[in-house]
């Protein structure tokens, strides 16, 4: 039976500071695992996209009289 490496640490919010283990390459379950938050991903990945969308929307707004 073929089995690949599986590891949850890199997506954990505490990845950089966690003191539970130095070997962050083989962890498949952990009581302290917390997925990086939406907020963080929006900051790092999605912000430019969101800003562009906002600008597009504003440009497309009909002028109400």
């Amino acid at each position, binding site marked *: *039976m*073929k*089995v*690949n*490496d*599986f*590891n*949850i640490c890199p*997506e954990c919010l*505490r990845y950089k*500071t*966690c*003191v*539970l*283990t130095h*070997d962050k*390459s*083989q*962890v*498949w*379950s*952990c*009581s*302290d*695992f*917390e*997925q*990086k*938050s*939406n907020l*963080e*991903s929006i900051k790092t*990945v999605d912000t430019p996209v969101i800003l562009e*969308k906002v600008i597009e929307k504003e440009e497309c707004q009909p002028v109400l009289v």
Partner: protein
Amino acid sequence: MITMTKPHANQEPGASSKVPARGMIDNVMEQFNSAADHIDLHPNIRKILSITNNEIVVHFPVKMDNGNVEIFTGYRVQHNNALGPYKGGLRYHPTVDIDAARALAMWMTWKTSLAGLPYGGGKGGIQLDPSLYSKSELERITRRFTFALADNIGPEHDIPAPDVNTNSQTMAWIADTYMSTRPPAERTANQHVVTGKPGGSGGLEGRDRATGYGVYLNIKCWMERHNKSLKGQKYIVQGFGNVGYWASHFMEQDGALLVAVQDAYGSIENQDGLKVDDLFNYSQSNKGSIVGFSQGKAIDNKDFFKTNCDICIPAALGNQITADNADSLKATLIAEGANGPTNVDGEKILLEKNIAIIPDILCNSGGVVGSYFEWLQNRNGELWQLNEVMAKLEKKMMDSFDKVFEYAQNEGLDMRTAAYCLAIRRIEKAYIERGIFP
């Protein structure tokens, strides 16, 4: 069966491009083979158990909030159902794939068998990073995945549960979607297609404390078998999440003293005892961290497992007790609340030092027993009260402990090997009685 890395075709003999550290998955497979050898498992049954029954891969489209469509890949591995429907978690994670799910599904087979449940083993999930999706997108992904799995899951066939990045909300979506695909008159009779649901949607009272309570019961049983009381026993806990907290809570109620705790942020110690609920309340108000708790002093993280104590409860993650630190442990009993906290090399040292280990497959099985109760509750159209749940859990856990302890004593084995032997023998018995079709 054990293959973690394949050598490259042009690789010289003996050379290795990648030598992964031994993981929990290796340990589980080694334990299976060792136990199979010990009970002289029939070669035909070994063949069956060494391979998964079914592996389902589904690709499904989901409309995103911005109107675009993304294609997702979901998996469900069904290892064995000789004892009953497949049972196991669904995880949402970028590294989920069919290979990762295989070993975890196999581990569920042993766990449900040892717990004496009418279940087999399964595991699955979706390959995605949940942090990149909104809640409504995750809902649509979950619902469409459920639809794509169709009759590959079912209350009498394969019963998923929460795992990494999935929770009671995810299970509620799955249950609702699955029930919606049934004929109207059958819908409510399918609520037990998943366990781990919210309380108002068929979830079990006390499911949150089931694993921790099971850890405590195992320790209590072990103490009783050694004519000891929990009163005054010092214990340390790694991980103060759901399992660590509830295990500590029940230990304290029996008079044991929590003397050290480690979480992702640091380690604290007080040989006079740390008040469990005070620590829990503190961590809740301190962004989930135990660091800075006034009743304890900070200790070096490297020294945590060297802390003076009678009982050690590793309840966080795997590979914590290894050849590097096993020799310095002070505890006389290790109760594995986490999955795979002691690796093979660490275990050898502990056993040589006559330190007992209550193995994970037994020690943290309170969770899956709780899931079984939820399933039964839904299936029978009942609503169980907390005291009923705890009483039933106690009976089931103590029964499992007694069987493992006695088998280990009679056969002169450590408790882990005994647990695997019992789990595999139960499945072997089912195959021998039933035979192989046709």
